[in-house]
């Protein structure tokens, strides 16, 4: 079953060149996402599935095979979900919910 990811609203973030700074406003923990993690982060719009992001963003842009892209994407999603920065959904979010999860 495909799963979808969206960003929590309890965070601050800013793109800084090819990286993204993210801070959880609940834990005050600061993260920097590298270039590929930034691409996954930006694609986490609640509309695209993890599989789609791995295939169409990571595998395509970084010219890696799908399985490698999926492993890397899942590893990042699990980490950021654990830290409360990404939310995982069984269904895509409606337009009204996007960005307000």
């Amino acid at each position, binding site marked *: 079953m495909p799963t979808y990811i969206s960003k929590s*609203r309890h*965070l*601050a973030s*800013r793109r800084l060149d090819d990286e993204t*700074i993210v801070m959880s406003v609940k834990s005050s923990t*600061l993260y920097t996402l590298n270039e590929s993690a930034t691409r996954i982060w930006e694609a986490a719009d609640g509309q695209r599935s993890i599989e789609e992001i791995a295939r169409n963003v990571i595998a395509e842009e970084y010219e890696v095979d799908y399985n490698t892209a999926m492993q890397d994407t899942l590893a990042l999603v699990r980490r950021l979900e654990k830290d409360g920065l990404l939310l995982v959904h069984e269904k895509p979010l409606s337009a009204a919910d996007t960005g307000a999860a």
Partner: protein
Amino acid sequence: MTLIEELNGKALRLGVPLSAHLDITYRCNERCEHCYLNHDDKGEMGTDEIKYLLGQLASHGAFFLIISGGEPLLRRDCFEILEHARKLLFNVKLKTNALLIGEHEAKLLVDLGVEQVQVSVYSHRPEVHDSITKVRGSLERTLAAIRRVKSAGLRITIANVLMKQNFSDYSGVQALARELGVHSTLDPTITPKMDGNTEVLQLRAPGSKLRSVFRDNELVGDVAEFCSPPAPVSDEMLDGIPCGAGHTSVYVSPYGDVYPCVQFPLTCGNVRVQSFRDIWQNSPQLREVRFIRARDLSTCSSCAHVGTCSRCPGLAYMEGNMRGPSSADCEKAYARTGVRSAHQLRQSKFHPDSMNLVQISV
């Protein structure tokens, strides 16, 4: 290197104002003795002007945003401004005296995702705190608000300014912070008023008293390390920038004036007549500030403390020369290490009587 240092290094290379400080009003409901502001409203930016500015700051890469004053909650649109800042995904820290934070406001701050609230507390004793703020009952009200904000789930820092009036109370404030379960900071910096008036500097805690503060292991941790003599000066230190003001941080007044820092009243432009981008990229004043390296400092470049001093270029500017020394920081360096600064040694040549005051370092 910490993550913050890495980010600041990257922001410096990219020319990004990673940290922005915006005072949305200079009006205040307290009249703190040491305050550097004129509290009259001389034409604050409107809500839309501030929202537009925040958009410009965000698009220019600003991430850490301090919203302050005066008392920011005196503005009816304060929460609208905070909400807009959060929509732009700023990391927001609100500096306030908390007198206007009730249950409703505390919940709003949490809902909006404000990362931190900083509240000024000058003493654990009402008679001392209230005599500094000039508002009877202010400590009691501020502490009640801190408890509300804390129980709502927000991170709080108590900020204490060390001065003559409250010198003996800083450990009481620390104990109070521990009891409340919040962080606390202590800063001995008293700044001249923004109009240049220096009378307020009489409130500064004297260096002889700072010496004991810098040897309080509750405050500084490893006293021997904190108070150790300065390391030998290297070329790397001399090639470094003296401070992030105007490089990776910026301050905007309620009237739209842009300064390198809140403590550095060098007007670099006004966002009501120029875009922030234009000011940040083209201001001659900011260019001058950015051009300065430690080796360019008129006295400090030959000072033993140049690599480790907390020299504030804004305080130096207010003393008359942004490349010159900041006497208050010389005092701090001496109180900390027992080693006189180059500026203090020069002064003692011109004032031979003071030679008798030279003390033996620890």
